[in-house]
């Protein structure tokens, strides 16, 4: 499967959805790394994520680390409760730039 992407406010927005587990996270990881390598500032939209596990979180961590290396912007947007719970558990809620919505970034 392919996750949807869109352009908004100078960012590439990648919309993850459903259950980002060991089965789906490789695709998420692939798209995150590809977009960064193409030189886009990246926002990962987690508003439709119902479940995310450590492999999904790891994909986000990998994207975050790559963005730092290549001086691109990387952030999470619209993090669902389910995803937030996991990020908090991983103490990553204070590490990732997390935005409520794209509108917040524009402001």
């Amino acid at each position, binding site marked *: 499967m392919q996750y949807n992407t869109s352009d908004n406010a100078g960012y590439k927005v990648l919309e993850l959805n459903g*259950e980002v587990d060991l089965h789906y996270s490789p695709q998420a990881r692939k798209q995150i790394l590809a977009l960064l390598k193409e030189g886009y500032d990246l926002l990962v939209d987690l508003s439709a994520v119902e479940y995310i596990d*450590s*492999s999904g979180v790891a994909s986000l961590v990998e994207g975050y680390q790559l963005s730092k290396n290549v001086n691109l912007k990387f952030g999470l947007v619209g993090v669902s409760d389910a995803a937030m719970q996991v990020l908090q558990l*991983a103490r*990553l809620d204070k590490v990732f730039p997390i935005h409520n919505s794209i509108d917040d970034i524009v402001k």
Partner: protein
Amino acid sequence: MTDALDSIKPSDLPAPPQAAIQILRACANPEINNQELAKLAATDPVLSAELLRIVNSPYFGMGGEVSNIIRAINILGHKALRNMVLCISVRDAIDPKNLPGFDVTGFWEDTLRRAAAGKLIAEQAGFDADECFTACLLQDFGLLVMFHVLRERKADWLEFIQSDPDKRYQLEEKIFDTTHDQVSLMLAKKWSLPENFSEAIGAHHHCQQLAAVENPVTLTLCHVMHCADWLAALFSASGKTAILRVVYSKLESLFNMSEQQGLELLNQLPAQVEDAANALGLHLHEQSDFEQVLREANVRLAEENTSYQELTWQLEKALQERDQLAKALALELEMAAEIQRSLLPDEKQACFPVYGVNIPAQELSGDFFDYFMLEDGSIYFNLGDVSGKGVTASLLMAKTSSLFHCLGKREHDLSRLMEQINAEICETTVRGMFVTMVAGKYNPRSGQVQIVNAGNPPVLFLQEDGKIKKIDAVTAPLGIVPDSAFPVVEFNLGKGHLLMYSDGVTEGYAADGNELGMHGLVKVIKQQLGNTPREQLNAIVDIFRHTETRQRDDITVMVVEHSGQVVEHLLKYEFTAEPAELQLMRQQVRQVLIGKNCKKACVDRLILAVNEAAMNIIQHAYNFDSSGNIWIEIMHKDNELQFKLTDFACAIDRSCVKSRDLNDIRPGGLGVHFINEIMDDVKFLDECENAGNILIMRKKLDASCLNKQGDQ
């Protein structure tokens, strides 16, 4: 019988001397006087001399006092004269020289037996003895005529003499195309014999043909001839057993003679034959007495008793007896099995902490188990196995079980109880039989357990943390050493339980056809960790229920469990080690947790932990080899959830399974942190048979995790 008349013509029949013919004809005339008859006899000096000799012979009863024919006729009467003339005529009718190679002696022997038998029957039955003698002398004379005509068949005589009257008759039809009775009848007519003589001779093989004849003497003669035939055959023919039966039967039905009377008659016969031969001037072989004939018949009888028919009958009878005995034995065994079952304890109420199962290999069991509560509330229990199987083992089983039950109620010291039982068995044991037994005492309130293991396989103490401790036998089985001591092993059951079993379990055949063994048993128990003790017991018993092979030995399993222990099984789910399978697994777990009234946040966190554990198995244990399987089980006990994940991959290096420093931000290593963060207790089981890994995770269900009553 036109055939007979065709094959033997009247011209073939021998003719007596002229004087004899004239005397016979004269005798048929009731008005003839003695003088005239005497004159006729005198015309043939040879005949006259023979008549005088016969008249004076002891057999015909005159004792040598008669010196002339006229006096003989005066004393004897016409009929006796006629009979004597007939006898002489028959005797002389065929010159043996005309039948070279034919057993003439044998023929006369046979004929005289018939005649003498006829005379004896007549004497016994009150008939005219001389008349019967003569008739019987004549009845088979036709056969000699037939051999005389068809001389080339003379060798067949041997077969005749060895056959009974019925077979002889059939042989005659086959060989001569006629029968002796018809030839004799012809002769009787030619010789001008009285009508009743002729009729009886012609019908003596078919007496029933004479039923309509008016003269009763004719039928009597016919019956006498018929019986005489069979009596004579008894001395010469084979198959004497059957012939004797016929003789007795005919004598009884025709003359109302008992077997005893028949036997007496037969005993007299050989001597009578010799006397008759002497009287008629015939030379015979020495006659065998009837006892000798009977001995021969008895030997045959014994031989015939073991004939095929007899064997078949005996076999059928033996099989019937066997079936009856087997039925009786089966009933006995069933009753014995019932008594045995009554020695096993009744299944107590569901919460009783001791219970067991006994499955005999045969009708009767050598295994046993028992438990009962003492007055102080503690529980005695025992499980034993008598050496050997079947009835003998079951008897000792009954004794040992009863001793424990009876003595146990008074002797509350386990060690001393065992000493007493051992002493009792040693005193009375036979054939080196012995009993292995594990016995114990359990206090459900304190959890304290005492165990004595005398020669039984190790008792398994399954501790709360999943560790299995073996309590090996320290003493020899009961019934071997009279003064044995029985040291007690004492410990606290805690929240664990005891599993006891007979060697029928470890030595029994599992489904793969191999002996289960101690390893196999431990493996089954490990797979059952977290399940209730009763489920563990059932799983062990099921091993043997599922095997195709015959149960090798009695199987007995008993459990002593922590009395407060109630384990609720919420889930057992098996899935393949593939990432795509995880979603379905999570759904299963979610349903269970919602069913336990967990809060949504709590459900999500627990699912995350379980999922991380499963992911680790897929990634690290199976290394993404999707052919592997994973089991997840969820149990609820003492307000605590227990999650058990089992895999069958190679054992992982547990030192590598650890949480990382969260300040070091990198992609991997979060899973173990999640698990440790969410669960109260996480551990791998130390011993995992089959080289797999078993992970146990526990979570206390406190108020923070549960919805309030009524919340959804």
